[in-house]
């Protein structure tokens, strides 16, 4: 390195063991500077801007490198969650059970929304547990950046680890709920069938969907804290529109509004709920209205009678209000892929801004 020429008023940086630098008589506002442009110097030594965002592919690789961190973080958080409660981990089972009991009391006993559903308890509990997974993932994802600010400001790691870790916590909770659910399903007399295995891919798709939307919510929630206040209300409205406690095609108000009924059934929450129900509940799979082959003429008659105020459920079964199971799978995959791809890019785009301020 050549001895830099000294600009008046500026001091040069010298390496260890170099001759002492010339003391500046007046305060030097720009100390420790060589004479070449700093950007060029940084470039020459291969230094990169510290706040630079990695490319989307590099980011994905970094994320993969931290997979152990994501898992350890999720497990640690999960254990800490109930550490203050006296019953401790028992709450992991108790919470879903109590949830199911409350909803059964309100919708099964008081409001009686059993219409068109053979095994209502199992139907309801499936809906609640599956929706709960998405609901909690969204709420928690919208808060994740603000909740982990300390960690973000202390250590360097891809921030996507955080929403991912929190949703894995929710997945762990969800799997515990599934054990409770299986017990309830068996207790209500459903047989064990090979269809049950389909629950695994459904939950995998739902997890992808939750992570994707969670990424978007995490980014929004990081910038605008009001969002995390609003999310619970939006999600609750969504729950009532997703057929958690009733069977969408069986809603009398929707008999004449096929389009609305269809849209409600293909919304992501309803899709994942219905796919799990169709896998677990044999009774539902075989008896739902619309299970019979579509018959245009009979359906027309049924709708005509319905409009006149004389509903004829047996005839209505010939109308295909129900989105078929194979279409549900297509929508399930579609929503998951759409959410994870868009969510990933949305979150990645703001990577360097998380935790500033």
């Amino acid at each position, binding site marked *: 390195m050549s001895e830099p020429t000294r600009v008046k008023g500026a001091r040069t940086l010298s*390496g260890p063991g170099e001759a002492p630098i010339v003391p500046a008589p007046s305060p030097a506002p720009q100390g420790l500077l060589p004479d070449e442009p700093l950007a060029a110097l940084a470039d020459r030594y291969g230094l990169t801007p510290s706040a630079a965002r990695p490319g989307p592919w590099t980011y994905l690789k970094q994320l993969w490198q931290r997979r152990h961190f994501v898992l350890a973080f999720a497990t640690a958080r999960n254990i800490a969650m109930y550490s203050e409660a006296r019953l401790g981990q028992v709450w992991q089972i108790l919470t879903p059970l109590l949830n199911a009991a409350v909803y059964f009391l309100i919708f099964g006993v008081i409001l009686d929304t059993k219409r068109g559903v053979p095994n209502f308890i199992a139907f309801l509990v499936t809906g609640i547990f599956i929706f709960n997974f998405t609901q909690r993932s969204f709420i928690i994802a919208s808060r994740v950046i603000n909740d982990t600010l300390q960690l973000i400001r202390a250590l360097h790691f891809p921030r996507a680890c955080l929403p991912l870790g929190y949703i894995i916590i929710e997945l762990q909770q969800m799997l515990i709920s599934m054990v409770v659910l299986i017990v309830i399903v068996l207790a209500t007399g459903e047989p064990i069938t090979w269809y049950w295995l389909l629950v695994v891919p459904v939950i995998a798709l739902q997890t992808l969907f939750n992570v994707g939307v969670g990424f978007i919510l995490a980014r929004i929630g990081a910038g605008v804290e009001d969002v995390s206040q609003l999310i619970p209300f939006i999600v609750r409205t969504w729950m009532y529109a997703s057929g958690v406690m009733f069977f969408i095609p069986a809603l009398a108000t929707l008999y004449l509004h096929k389009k609305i009924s269809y849209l409600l059934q293909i919304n992501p929450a309803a899709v994942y709920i219905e796919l799990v129900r169709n896998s677990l509940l044999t009774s539902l799979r075989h008896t739902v209205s619309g299970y019979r082959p579509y018959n245009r003429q009979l359906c027309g008659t049924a709708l005509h009678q319905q409009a006149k105020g004389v509903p004829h459920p047996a005839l209505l079964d010939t109308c295909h209000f129900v989105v078929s199971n194979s279409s549900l799978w297509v929508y399930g995959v579609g929503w998951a892929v759409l959410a994870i791809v868009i969510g990933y890019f949305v979150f990645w785009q703001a990577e360097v801004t998380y935790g500033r301020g």
Partner: protein
Amino acid sequence: MAAAEPLVVVDNLHIVYRVFGSRADRGTAATAFLRMLRRQHRPSVREVHAIRGVSFVANRGDAVGVIGRNGSGKTTLLRAIAGLLPPESGAVYTTGHASLLGVNAALLDDLTGERNVVVCGLAMGMTPREVKERYQSIVDFSGVGDFINLPMNAYSTGMGSRLRFAIASARSHDVLLIDEALVTGDAEFRVKSRQRIEELRAEAGTVFVVAHSMAQIEETCNRVIWLEKGKIVQAGDDVPGIIDAYLAATGGQPLNRAAAKT
């Protein structure tokens, strides 16, 4: 003369950050609604121009002390070097990532020290095997003893900062930024941590230290930057000279170097 290899290049750096809810959030819900109707911005969002055009270069093997009054931008500068605050203009160039170790960086408060060691080790990019290998040495170095099995919010300030330092220094970093992390340690730990900083420097990294203890800066650093209101007042290798100037400017007691050396 050995070629000095720059590890941190800060080029005319400006940092502006936004503070929410600084004063006007005392307003009622009604005034907040009126503001929304009139499409006014929240007056509580204030911009703070914390770093105003700072440039310097730090080389491999340097320990740089950053001094200045409270609010002069020391912590902000470190956070910018760590890449945790994006610059408004200018740039910070480093190799890879700098690790910031702050006294306020309460890692995961409700988890045990043990889990913090594991989780933070993994977050810093260690493999599970590396964490396992270094776990005992981290715990031993921190000296928290049996407290390692208790949640960190049960720790004293000193113990917390010792564990944090132990975790952060477990891995060799190209750039390690220490923000008053050593203030709360006792005399024994200060000696240990100074040795560790020397080792990190010897492992060919750059260490930045923010501290209000001038004696500590003079002991650990070979180079010092004096910040005032986000600008560099003096910077260079003449550590005692700059510290004396700083103490004279702020009205502090001059260091009694003769006593310190005995």
